[in-house]
């Protein structure tokens, strides 16, 4: 007979999304209580142990700070200082919980929304918005923070991460490559092929899928009727579905997967179930396609709120912590804003830079011709190309 039909009717899906699902990993319940999961506690020894207060405060600070960076960027876009911005609002636990589990020598390949992860990697905050202002094709030096710059072609980076992981294997190192991508991305052929390669070579890679329920206007139910974690099972890759708004669950799951990879256990897949509380990008209007109710439901599951409740229950949400975090947020937001508004403008001839690593005769000629073209305007006293109207010709 054919295997059991594991496809729930679309209407049944919502049920499966609930945290009652025993497969759904949650270590902080919605009220902020720490749920015991004996098999996982070893991954949270630092959180649960003596120095726990410091660790939790750190995670809290990170989450608040990246939300602030995000809000600042959104504001900068609204003010016309950025061309576009893809907010991460609502995904702070998924990004900080995973980002903070990494070692410096791990290497991240992400999509465009993982600016919180970049923060964990130590990105220069002056540089993070270059690309969104339109002043560069990408933001930072990948080798300085061991994280590739944002990938816009949906899913393409997953293959890069697997290749990088193969290189780690060849080198006999115990680093791990990470692939961040969204729920929508899972439909792209590249993502499936990346799992084929990872499983075939047992490469040390962690697939980290942020299921934020939407791919622009498309609900995740259009991409799949079962969980995305199960997708990985079909490729023979160990997988887990975690509450992506629970920073501790994300942290523990990520640590476990990284450890597995370091031990030679090959690839893993984490589906972090979270929610994109903002628009897809600042160019998007989500009211055209989603219910206000849905947003409200998820606002109640806000990952920062959850951690605050937890901190409170442990008496850790002190005035001092709040103030420290607020001060840091202000500082960081200032750096970001300042970085944006003082960013040097590119120069015309920069368009020709770095197309090739070695000299290219065809392009050099084109460059030379354009230089001559621009020089004309200087002779005529006009400012620059594109600013001289035909009338003045």
């Amino acid at each position, binding site marked *: 007979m054919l295997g059991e039909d594991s496809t729930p009717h679309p209407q049944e899906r919502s049920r499966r999304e609930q945290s009652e699902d025993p497969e759904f990993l949650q270590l902080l319940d919605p009220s902020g209580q720490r749920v015991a999961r004996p098999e996982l506690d070893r991954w949270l020894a630092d959180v649960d142990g003596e120095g726990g207060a410091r660790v939790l405060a750190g995670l809290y600070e990170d989450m608040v700070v990246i939300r602030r960076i995000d809000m600042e960027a959104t504001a900068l876009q609204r003010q016309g200082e950025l*061309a576009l911005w893809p907010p991460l609002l609502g995904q702070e636990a998924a990004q900080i919980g995973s980002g903070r589990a990494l070692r410096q020598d791990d290497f991240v390949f992400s999509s465009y929304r993982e600016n919180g992860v970049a923060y964990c990697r130590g990105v220069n905050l002056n540089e993070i918005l270059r690309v969104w*202002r339109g002043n560069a094709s990408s933001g930072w030096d990948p080798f300085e923070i061991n994280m590739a710059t944002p990938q816009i072609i949906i899913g393409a980076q997953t293959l890069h991460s697997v290749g990088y992981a193969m290189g780690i294997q060849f080198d006999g190192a115990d680093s791990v490559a990470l692939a961040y991508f969204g729920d929508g991305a899972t439909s792209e052929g590249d993502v499936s092929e990346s799992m084929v390669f990872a499983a075939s070579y047992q490469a040390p890679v962690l697939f980290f899928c942020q299921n934020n329920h939407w791919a622009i206007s498309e609900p995740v139910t259009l991409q799949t009727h079962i969980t995305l974690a199960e997708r990985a099972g079909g490729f023979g890759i160990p997988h887990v579905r975690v509450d992506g708004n629970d920073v501790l669950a994300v942290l523990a799951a990520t640590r476990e997967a990284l450890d597995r990879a370091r031990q030679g256990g090959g690839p893993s897949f984490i589906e972090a179930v979270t929610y994109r509380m903002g628009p897809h990008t600042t160019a998007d209007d989500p009211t055209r396609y989603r219910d206000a109710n849905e947003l409200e439901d998820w606002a109640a599951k806000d990952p920062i709120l959850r951690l605050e409740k937890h901190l409170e229950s442990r008496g850790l949400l002190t005035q001092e912590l709040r103030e420290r975090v607020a001060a840091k947020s202000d500082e960081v937001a200032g750096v970001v804003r300042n970085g944006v508004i003082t960013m040097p403008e590119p120069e015309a001839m920069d368009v020709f830079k770095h197309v090739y690593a070695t000299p290219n005769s*065809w*392009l050099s000629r*084109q460059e030379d011709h*354009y230089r001559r073209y621009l020089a004309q305007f200087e002779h005529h006293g006009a400012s620059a190309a594109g600013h001289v109207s035909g009338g003045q010709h």
Partner: protein
Amino acid sequence: MATMTFARAINAGLRKAMENDPKVVLMGEDIGTLGGVFRITDGLQKDFGQHRVLDTPLAEAGIIGTAIGLSYRGYRPVCEIQFDGFIYPAFDQIVSQVAKLHYRTQGLVKVPLTIRVPFGGGIGSPEHHSESPEAYFTHTSGLRVISVSNPQDAYTMIQQAIACDDPVLYFEPKRRYHDKGEVDEGLDLSAAPSMESARVLTQGSDVTLVAYGPLVKTALDVAVAAGDEGISVEVIDLRSLSPVDYPVVEASVRKTGRLVIAHEAGQNGGLGAEIAASLTERCFNYLEHAPVRVTGFDIPYPYSKLEMHHLPDLDRILDGVDRAMDRPNSLSSLDGADD
């Protein structure tokens, strides 16, 4: 006659095609509830239902590949590729399947597929959102490639593309979506000029200026500006990029003896190369100057702060006209030199 935006005209053309033929179905990412990121399909799912306007999973090969299957079943799918730069994952299905199926099956399987591609730059987008990939497709036998430059053509030619039994790539100049124009919605398709035909937009005697899609508007501005300087420019809107309507361009070049071709795509192997080569073959003895190409550079599309340097604009094209006319121009100093 109604005044409408370019975007609205495509929408109206799609609606008309869907009304006329129940086999026409639209497929793409975000084209249903949202009406597409550019709102080109706005309202169509509401009016025609989910089986006529399909939001698809996020996979471009999947969109084109399933559309091929629908063609086998007698449908006429119209696929939207959200942005030019996202067509490449579907390249294999387009080049090895869509383009070759009719030939491979000795004409038994028709693939009356229309692939709509918002293309070109100028809207300040991040990378992969401003590509001009048309030459990949004009170099692919078995495909037809067209590009529209005004609301009336947008309205008419989307219907012609859908009605055509060959697969058609329909390139929409996204930076012109908000331009307005008159559209005759009552126009009888059979009365409209063939989708394969080019159109002479301004009569001129000194130089022929060929453009398509987004640069047609710029070309018309060039004709005015050059006219002010006493140069008479004949502007031709290609409309069809494969096949090109060579007789029309040829007649013009025989008259003017000079040719300028403008496009946003890179020069190396761009459409300009084919047009320059073909016209040189066809009118060598009439040419008074080598055909001049004014194109984007051979670089990946640059970040938005620099895109105006990449895109041929009024001044760059005027400079090209000067070159074709043997007037002083940016490369004059190189004349005769071995550059």
